[in-house]
């Protein structure tokens, strides 16, 4: 993938990235996932031609019964009707198509992003690449937020918490549910607080709610590392690992949010005076500083 900053400073993705996967059906520009359905067709037809003889004879007795034929046709039409209705209604409550964008990741992206979360000090270009006004899918740009890592990290955090308590003989099955709902509640509170403060400071940003959920979910990676280090190396290991992860998530959040919340000039590094930019800088630092606090708050009771 060749992302290059052009003279205007905006990162534009070259269109030749679409040629990377020749089997991809790239007719629509909004395609996020590879279409593998066509490749399985020819082989399937080739195989079934050979053994169609003996199978068709036994199959014919089941399908020739008109009543079961009718029942199957009715059942399949009912199923497709129900699916249609559910799709239509579900899209009203949960924007499924928008969610799909956040899960369009691949292994390389996940690896790079995890590395970035633990060691963000060497990365230079933090801008999100755009392609004709829409953000590029996370698969092609390591700076774009995704929901795959936060979701997986959340679930792993619950399991690791259970593991940690299990080694101290304090585990019970209800604990997993309690921990899960507790962490979820704190996540919701944090996202609501950030939304409220963004509204009060009147920031014109293109940060959506899902983006904020993604950013708040990135701290679970650091928490998992901390708790695992605490399990392996005791309290000192826990504190050291947590300190490192807190510092890196602080730097990560500041560098990512700076480009989204602050105005263009301030984000480039020039010191821009003015109460508004100062307020926005304080807001960015407050959001970033809340992450280590939450990280400590949600894990200290797990490591004794």
């Amino acid at each position, binding site marked *: 993938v060749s992302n290059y900053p052009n003279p205007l400073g905006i990162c534009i993705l070259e269109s030749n990235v679409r040629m990377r996967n020749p089997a991809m059906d790239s007719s629509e520009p909004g395609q996020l996932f590879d279409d593998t359905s066509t490749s399985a067709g020819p082989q399937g037809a080739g195989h079934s031609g050979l053994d169609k003889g003996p199978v068709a004879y036994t199959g014919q007795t089941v399908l020739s019964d008109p009543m079961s034929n009718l029942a199957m046709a009715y059942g399949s039409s009912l199923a497709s009707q129900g699916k249609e209705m559910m799709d239509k209604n579900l899209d009203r409550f949960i924007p499924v198509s928008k969610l799909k964008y956040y899960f369009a990741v691949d292994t390389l992206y996940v690896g790079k992003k995890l590395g970035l979360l633990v060691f963000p000090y060497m990365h230079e270009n933090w801008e999100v690449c755009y392609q004709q006004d829409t953000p590029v899918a996370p698969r092609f740009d390591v700076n774009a937020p995704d929901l795959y890592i936060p979701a997986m990290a959340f679930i792993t955090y619950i399991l690791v918490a259970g593991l940690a308590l299990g080694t101290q003989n304090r585990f019970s099955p209800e604990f997993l549910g309690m921990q899960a709902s*507790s962490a979820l509640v704190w996540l919701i509170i944090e996202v609501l607080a950030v939304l409220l403060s963004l*509204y009060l400071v009147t920031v014109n940003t293109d940060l959506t709610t899902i983006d904020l959920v993604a950013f708040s979910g990135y701290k679970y990676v650091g928490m998992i590392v901390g708790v695992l280090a605490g399990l392996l190396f005791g309290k000192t290991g826990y504190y050291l690992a947590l300190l490192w992860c807190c510092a890196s998530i602080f730097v990560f959040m500041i560098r990512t949010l700076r480009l989204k919340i602050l105005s263009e000039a301030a984000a480039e590094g020039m010191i821009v005076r003015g109460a508004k930019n100062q307020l926005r800088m304080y807001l960015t630092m407050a959001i970033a500083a809340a992450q280590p606090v939450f990280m400590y708050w949600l894990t200290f009771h797990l490591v004794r």
Partner: protein
Amino acid sequence: MAFTLYALIQTAVLFTNAIAVLHEERFLSKIGWGAEQGIGGFGDDPGIKAQLLNLIRSVRTVMRVPLIIVNSVCILLLLLFG
């Protein structure tokens, strides 16, 4: 620490109730948070106080009827199930 989703819903209902009972004339105007002080300058930027007053006023207007319903349901459930 042991938060459940139900506790979150309770907190949200209590907060919204608290905002809804702030009376416009008797209280907000007395401390300088009335509706007319919020509109203020028509410059480029409302400022934090204007945004906050706007938020309080819109919560009070929009959430009045849903709050009645939610509070009645809560009272009913608490009476029935303790």
